[in-house]
């Protein structure tokens, strides 16, 4: 039984399926690729099982409980694909010693690996995202000093996900002197008329969109209906995929969104996928959808997990590993440009370096804009300002540690 | 034994009028029920008989008039107040609690007599249990009396119509009322069953001294059982008196009986 078990929590039905399905497809295809092309990770086959959460927290918990101890060594890590589920699982995963990978989402304070030993909000937390978004606004306005007195609204999914950036934005508002207004949208977000009428009356300079599922496209349509300029809207990286803009048609033209490093498009690894998976008829989606934003994100996410296992195998041997061992792999994962190129992800990803004190590993971002047909990258790489984020992380995670009676690890002593 | 006390009036209805939109169900009706008697109310369909009972036990609130029961006068009261005052009734369209067994239906009639509260009942221990058993004993007496032992545990929805009427009577009796209002208790019964029912009514009246007001379309029953009969037609009282008097009244024959009985 030379198999490494990896559970896949996904949602292919319900209101969030439009975004959940392409992501899950990317994940599944990448794991298959490793098995088909390489015969597994150093010969250890990847065994997966999907569990439908419907983006609902309680279902997510149920899935986790069901899958955590499957396979010869239990789950290597868990990737709940929802900030809400992440919150619900944070304590459990620490007890069960299973890493929880939340790439580009999850709780921002869990960047602090000293307190959150098992959480890995890789490649960017929502606090990083908030900072990146404000940086973009400043750039468009012509400098941070121009932010003063401006109005910036946050249209957010009323859930842990949408609320996560608020503390950071408040910090930023204080620092730069803009007026910050959070505007909640109730799940699932089909009804936003009053929010947009309010926006029309309040006329903010920018609207940040923290939406998911149908909420994104509805926001764009309602913006068009009240004639709010789409190029003054900046979505988080979960509000910047194809299903978010296509339903709005022409109305979406000009809409911007952050990128979690990569965008849409095909890269060397896609050729492998097409060759080893789709040519054999084992693909999990229609071939035209390969290379969509969320599909790519799923692949990146799966790749990071696989590389972490590979890293851990260096220390623990080429055999199925426990969650605890994989955690070591994650915490010591370093992906250089060369390695990224080897993996076929060149152009999708900047270098990553995870450590005990930094479970985020990288905080690069770019901005893309929808031109009516495709996403166009319109900005250069930038990095979230750690000097602003770090104090908040320290502060909030310390509170968590106190509440949960967790004794933070001394990262200096970790290897 | 039975001794109608001619002087004591249990229920006095005074000038009651009731209208629903354009329909004047009752127009200035007055009558009384004496303690211990069996009082019948008859009249053609839609005359206002059921409405009268509804007024008496508070389900309808009359537009005019007053009701004096056991000496206290009211024009308006809530149904459960009437029940607490000692008025029980059965219904024209059987109004049993369909999902419950016959036993539970009758036990429900004892609600007003239950003393122990929610917490005691939840524990169902000691005094609460003792009380429950005591009520059960009383109810079993009624069940025996009405000869429905075999159907105690049957959900009443499954019972044939006639037995349902009997259970309904049992439920009313469980309240130990002073005044029992019966709305067509013998509709849909054959002679034998009517005999049984008559016997129950007479016995209740005799043994417990319960006063009974009765609506019935079977003239034989009415004439045999009742002490006095009031006749309504189109919401107006057209006759009142002993069965024999009423039987002979031309107004009653025209409006109701058709042929002299």
């Amino acid at each position, binding site marked *: 039984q030379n198999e490494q078990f990896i559970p896949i929590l996904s949602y292919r039905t319900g209101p969030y399926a439009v975004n959940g399905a392409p992501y899950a497809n990317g994940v599944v295809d990448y794991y298959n690729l490793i098995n088909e092309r390489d015969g597994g990770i150093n010969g250890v086959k990847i065994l997966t099982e999907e569990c439908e959460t419907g983006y609902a927290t309680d279902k997510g918990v149920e899935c986790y409980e069901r899958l955590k101890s499957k396979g010869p060594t239990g789950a290597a890590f868990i990737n709940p694909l929802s900030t809400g589920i992440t919150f619900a699982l944070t304590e459990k995963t620490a007890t069960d010693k299973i890493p929880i990978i939340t790439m580009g989402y999850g709780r921002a304070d869990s960047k602090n690996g000293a307190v959150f030993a098992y959480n890995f909000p890789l490649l960017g937390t929502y606090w990083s995202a908030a900072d990146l978004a404000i940086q973009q606004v400043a750039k468009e306005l012509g400098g941070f000093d121009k932010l003063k007195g401006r109005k910036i609204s946050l249209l957010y999914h009323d859930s842990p996900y949408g609320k996560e950036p608020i503390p950071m934005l408040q910090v930023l508002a204080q620092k730069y002197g803009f007026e910050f207004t959070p505007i909640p*949208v109730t799940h699932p977000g089909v009804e936003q*008329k*009053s929010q947009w*009428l309010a926006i*029309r009356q309040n006329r903010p300079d920018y609207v940040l969109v923290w939406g998911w599922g149908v909420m994104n496209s509805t926001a764009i*349509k309602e913006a068009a209906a009240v004639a709010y300029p789409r190029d003054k809207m900046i979505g988080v990286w979960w509000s910047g995929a194809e*299903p978010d803009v296509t339903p709005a*048609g022409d109305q979406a033209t000009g809409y911007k969104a952050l990128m979690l490093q990569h965008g849409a498009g095909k890269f060397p690894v896609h050729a492998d996928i097409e060759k080893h998976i789709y040519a054999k008829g084992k693909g999990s989606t229609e071939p035209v959808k390969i290379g969509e934003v969320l599909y790519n994100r799923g692949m990146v996410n799966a790749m990071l997990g696989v590389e972490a296992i590979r890293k851990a195998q260096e220390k623990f041997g080429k055999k199925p590993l426990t969650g605890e061992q994989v955690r070591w792999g994650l915490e010591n994962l370093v992906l250089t440009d060369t390695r990224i190129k080897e993996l076929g992800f060149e152009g999708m990803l900047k270098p990553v370096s995870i450590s005990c004190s930094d479970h985020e590993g990288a905080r690069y971002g770019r901005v893309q804009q929808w031109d009516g047909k495709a996403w166009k990258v319109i900005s250069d790489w930038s990095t979230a300002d750690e000097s602003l984020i770090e104090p908040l992380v320290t502060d909030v995670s310390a509170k968590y540690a106190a509440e949960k009676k967790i004794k933070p690890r001394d990262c200096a002593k970790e290897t | 034994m039975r001794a109608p006390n001619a002087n004591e009036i249990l229920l006095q209805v005074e000038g009651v009028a009731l209208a629903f939109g354009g329909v004047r169900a009752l127009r200035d009706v007055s009558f009384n029920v004496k303690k211990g008697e069996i009082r019948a109310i008859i009249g053609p369909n839609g005359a206002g008989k059921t409405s009268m009972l*509804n007024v008496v036990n508070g389900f309808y609130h009359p537009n005019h008039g007053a009701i004096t029961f056991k000496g206290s006068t009211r024009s308006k009261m809530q149904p459960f107040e009437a029940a607490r005052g000692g008025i029980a009734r059965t219904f024209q369209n059987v109004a049993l609690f369909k999902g419950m067994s016959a036993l539970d239906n009758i036990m429900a009639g004892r609600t007003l007599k239950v003393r122990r509260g929610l917490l005691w009942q939840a524990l169902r221990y000691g005094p609460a249990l003792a009380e429950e058993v005591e009520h059960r004993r009383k109810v079993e007496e009624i069940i025996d009396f009405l000869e429905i032992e075999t159907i105690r545990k049957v959900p009443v929805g499954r019972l044939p119509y006639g037995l349902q009427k009997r259970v309904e009577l049992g439920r009313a009796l469980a309240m130990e009322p002073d005044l029992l209002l019966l709305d067509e208790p013998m509709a849909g019964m054959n002679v034998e069953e009517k005999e049984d029912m008559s016997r129950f009514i007479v016995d209740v009246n005799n043994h417990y001294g319960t006063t009974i007001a009765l609506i019935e379309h079977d003239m034989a029953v009415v004439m045999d059982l009742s002490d006095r009969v009031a006749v309504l037609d189109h919401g107006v009282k057209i006759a009142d008196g002993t069965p024999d008097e009423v039987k002979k009244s031309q107004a009653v024959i025209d409006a109701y009986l058709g042929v002299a009985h």
Partner: protein
Amino acid sequence: MIALGQFLEVLIGGLMSGVLYSLVALGFVLIFKASGVFNYAQGAMVLLAGLALVRALDLLVANGLPLWVAVILAIGFAAVIMAATAWLIERFVIGPLVNQDGLTLFMSTIGVTFVIESAAEMIFGSDVYPLRLFPTDAWFLFEGLFPGGILVNKLDVWGALIAGVLVAGLAVFFQRTKTGRALRAVADDHLAAHSVGIPISWIWFVVWLVAGLVALVAATVWGTKLGVQFSITFLALKALPVLIIGGLTSIPGAIVGGLIVGAGEKLAEVYLGPSIGGGIEYWFAYVLALAVLLLRPQGLFGERIIERV
């Protein structure tokens, strides 16, 4: 002046979007009125109709048919799908449940909801499919009077027109025809309706079909608004307060309820929301409904609940 303009804008926007809810509520009313079934699946039926329509349309257009031909054919196709659904539901779910109480029927429609939603997505796909049958931009009225004008969305106006026509037609059908009378009889007492020879299965098929067609109409409007996608099913929950304010059995009530809910919740959200945290419109609509029911337990235009002994 600005304040007044803004108020009017919110009010009009609210009234209009309320009417869009009415489109969904109408389907509920139809079925309830005719069979006493509280059809939770109405939202799912809108999804199904919308998916059938948009997928057929895309396919036909892709095959080079002129748009108007494609639209007609696609609507025909969707109508056939709704007819098949109506038949299946009658045959396999509601028919066998004749004479059961309202709660059981209600729950069975939730089961139906699961089936329709999933089957629709399985057959027609689960992406977001844009549909553009109506204009979605806005007019800005009285720009001279109010700065920025008063925004009125064209789609909303279309929706309101369609709803008005539907309501008039259906109201006549129910009150004036023999079938309408039979429908109401069935809702009152299944068994008695059987006993006088009303063919309940046929009646129910017709009603579910009409409700399906109403769902199709709703789907054209809502699909244009949101894109055809799963979340359309959530409309069912938004239509419920509309439904009970108007009265479960009243067709015009659905419109009036929609107007009240739409205006009420939007005004509340815009003027009350910010001070107590925002996002209040979901419950506000229901609290509004509760308040109306306390005054009139059968809704504004619903049939009286008969209590007699």
